[in-house]
């Protein structure tokens, strides 16, 4: 197979940021395409700058290239100017590594991290010359795969994706390589149907064409396998021990500036905080920590190899890592490489202890610090189970301003269950108090309130909740803006129209596929870029398909409703989620299970991980946000069993 570079090169003089398309990053591999081996094209369906840092894609890139029977290359969604140039000159989508045509790969695999990129997946397939619908593909076309958090509700993309990987991809990509390789070497017996059916038996792989959805009017009756050897429920995959997977070993170092442009070392997966709005926290359970020694080694080797002067310790709540304070102190004291190295914790907990860590690692450039209280009142924070008290927040903010930070950024959600106007106005109250605290320390003190509309997600306790409509979200945002008009706090918000479309896709079913295709055909790519987003394209497409947007977005679901993702298992018992939803409506918080009796959510049972997860040592820095009164270093009684939902009020 030949490189398309001679045909791509002349196009680059006429496009914005041509280096998006050249590859050549430090850490990129020379793929070894052997006859009979399986070639994977890993595609992030957004711009290079957003897609390149994606750790999931980089991990799979390395794992596949380390295999003797596989080779992997990468691609990213070409920006509009490049897409137009490719079409004009009949050049197909290509890999950035060796500039091979996407359609020459055996597998084209997409990372789906956000609903608004769905139309970009269709655009990439079309640019590749691959039919967008699975049913139109023939035996020579690549197998189209998707993974990432969004595929925990795969149904809206079921028409376009041949096989979804649910959960951690490290192990299934190898098993899929074996299936596809054997089929390919045998001369593709039985065509696509045969290999897809074989893939359906890989644990964690969901092949939508092997399932039939039956409806009663708008309601789903059931999603059932077509064959007896196809599993009725697809279980997610979970890597049991991160220590076995020290990836990426050679993080890619892009030549142009990208988001998260630094060394990223994942310190744990999963989260036990139990925030009810947070899909990531639910679907990535259980908590699996990387051994501190391995973290140190990955940081040291990564910095030495990449030349980065900043490392982020990534996870869903990095301050919760066991012994985070000594880990950070160690990294700061043994400075690796040449010059000063910065350490950052991207997901900060809202408490004074966390600010203490932040000040430990950020000796200079103390400009902005971000906290996410998410809800404007203690009552609402109990509803969403983000158990941050006002005292926690004010102590954190006091700590930040007193130690030299000048800007504090606060993240909130609006449109949460049971939310009343006093909760929304509570955001303004918190922001005013934060500014007041700041002004006692510096005249330059400012606060930014960043507001996002809440989108209920599959496999969370809020999967039954009717999302706020566009007008209601806008009303709340305007109320908040009015309330803060004379304040030093400024308000930034996510466009409610985009939130609405996220709602269509996030809890949509298979019928939404036709909507996504219509929006793409009408030119709706890069929908997460506000200048390219148009709500009417989506509403027109819904109308054309005879679908009611409000039925999908703003309607409350009942306990007995069959949900489009009920045949996908994230490990959480459905009755645990329903009970947690009911506790939420009663404004009952659920303490962090790392330091309390097990609630039997269902996730740990399969991995025998209870004792890895349950910690006998109270969280570093005290019990902030755990819903309990624990003193640091004291023993925490651990009991496992059926005890369920002890609540705090």
């Amino acid at each position: 197979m030949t490189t398309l570079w001679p045909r791509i090169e002349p196009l680059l003089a006429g496009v914005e940021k041509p280096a998006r398309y050249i590859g050549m990053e430090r850490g990129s591999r020379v793929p070894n395409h052997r006859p009979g081996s399986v070639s994977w094209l890993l595609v992030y369906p957004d711009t290079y700058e957003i897609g390149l840092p994606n750790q999931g894609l980089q991990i799979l890139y390395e794992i596949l290239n380390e295999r003797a029977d596989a080779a992997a290359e990468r691609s990213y969604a070409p920006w509009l100017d490049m897409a137009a140039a490719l079409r004009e000159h009949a050049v197909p989508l290509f890999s950035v590594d060796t500039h091979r045509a996407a359609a020459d790969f055996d597998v084209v695999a997409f990372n789906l991290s956000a609903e608004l990129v769905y139309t970009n997946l269709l655009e990439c397939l079309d640019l590749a010359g691959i039919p967008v619908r699975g049913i139109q593909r023939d035996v020579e076309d690549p197998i189209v795969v998707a993974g990432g958090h969004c595929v925990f509700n795969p149904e809206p993309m079921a028409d376009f994706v041949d096989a979804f990987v649910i959960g951690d991809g490290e192990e299934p990509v190898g098993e899929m390589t074996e299936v596809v390789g054997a089929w390919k070497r045998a001369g593709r017996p039985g065509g696509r149907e045969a290999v897809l059916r074989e893939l359906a038996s890989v644990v964690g792989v969901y092949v939508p064409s092997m399932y039939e959805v039956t409806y009663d009017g708008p309601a789903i009756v059931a999603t059932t396998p077509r064959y007896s050897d196809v599993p009725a429920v697809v279980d997610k995959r979970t890597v049991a021990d991160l220590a076995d997977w020290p990836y990426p070993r050679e993080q890619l170092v892009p030549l142009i500036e990208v988001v998260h442009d630094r060394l990223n070392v994942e310190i744990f997966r999963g989260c036990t905080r139990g925030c009810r709005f947070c899909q990531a926290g639910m679907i990535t359970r259980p908590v699996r920590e990387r051994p501190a020694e391995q973290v140190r080694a990955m940081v040291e080797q990564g910095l030495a190899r990449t030349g980065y002067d900043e490392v982020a310790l990534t996870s869903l709540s990095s301050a919760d890592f066991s012994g985070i304070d000594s880990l950070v102190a160690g990294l700061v004291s043994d400075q690796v490489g040449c010059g000063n190295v910065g350490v950052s914790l991207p997901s900060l907990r809202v408490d004074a202890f966390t600010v203490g860590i932040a000040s430990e690692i950020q000796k200079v450039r103390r400009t902005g610090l971000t906290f996410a209280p998410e809800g404007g009142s203690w009552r609402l924070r109990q509803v969403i189970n983000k158990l941050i008290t006002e005292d926690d927040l004010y102590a954190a903010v006091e700590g930040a301003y007193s130690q030299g930070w000048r800007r504090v950024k606060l993240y909130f959600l609006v449109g949460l269950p049971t939310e009343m106007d006093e909760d929304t106005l509570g955001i303004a109250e918190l922001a005013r108090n934060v500014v007041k605290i700041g002004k006692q320390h510096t005249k330059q003190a400012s606060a930014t309130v960043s507001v996002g509309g809440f989108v209920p997600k599959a496999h969370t306790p809020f999967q039954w909740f009717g999302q706020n409509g566009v007008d209601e979200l806008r009303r709340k945002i305007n109320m908040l803006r009015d309330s803060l008009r004379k304040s030093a706090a400024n308000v930034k918000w996510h466009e409610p129209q985009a939130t609405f479309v996220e709602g269509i896709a996030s809890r949509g079913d298979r019928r939404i596929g036709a909507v996504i295709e219509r929006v793409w055909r009408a030119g709706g790519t890069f929908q997460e870029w506000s200048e390219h987003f148009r709500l009417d394209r989506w509403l027109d497409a819904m109308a054309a398909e005879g679908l009611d947007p409000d039925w999908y977005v703003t309607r409350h679901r009942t306990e007995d409703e069959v949900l489009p993702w009920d045949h996908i298992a994230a490990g959480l018992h459905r009755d645990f989620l329903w009970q947690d939803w009911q506790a939420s409506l009663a404004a009952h918080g659920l303490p962090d299970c790392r330091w309390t009796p097990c609630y039997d959510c269902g996730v740990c049972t399969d991995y025998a991980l209870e004792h890895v997860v349950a910690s006998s040592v109270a969280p570093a820095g005290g019990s902030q946000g755990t819903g309990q009164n624990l003193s640091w270093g004291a023993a925490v009684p651990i009991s496992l069993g059926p005890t369920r939902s002890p609540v705090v009020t």
Partner: protein
Amino acid sequence: MRGEVGFPVRVCFTKQGKVRFISHRDVARAFERAFRIETLPLSFTQGFSPRPKVSFGLALSVGHESDAEFLDLELAEQIGLEELPALLSRSLPEGIEVRAVQALADRAPALQEAVSAVEWEIEVIPARAGVEASPDVVNDRVHAVLQSTTLVVERVRKGRTSSEDIRPVLRRITVLGPTERGTLVGVELSTRPTSVRPAELVAVLSPDFCEGRVRRTGQWIERGEERLEPLTADPRIAVEARAS
């Protein structure tokens, strides 16, 4: 202040092939990473956020190649420089190759001020279908342009249009021969009183032309009658004692 405490070094490097599509700023970042990978003992600026003491020469546009780019850095301690080109090259992106380094005299003039002439090889290609950019056609235009006494171009800077005469900075334009798509010309330009971009020069030759491949082939520091390579213009004398 350069040279006061550290050991200044001038670096000559190339930018060729695919890597020509990264920006001047990206090149600077790639060098900073290479310095850290090779744990080069750089001097740092004092102050709130210390930066390594590195200064680049004239910027090179995205898409243009070069055989002769320069940067000055300052080392905090004296190290052997023989290995430096190979060490840096292995940690830089493919196509950016350090060709040579030279210990620099204290208080040598900065590259941006010192370089007074730049040489280019510019491929002139047809701007659209139906026009020609063969060596003969280009040669006629080159002669016409060199015979003119003024060449006024319109420039837009910060939203304001101004007219500038670029004739004084055109020193030499020579047709070198045909390329697959057009004609290769060799050009030498002064950097003062104004700098001229290759695209501007090509547009001045004819609106029917545009630039294809562009490569900077040389930079010069001129002092009176002397014409010096930047690398060797201000060498630190090997036996020079570091007085005070």
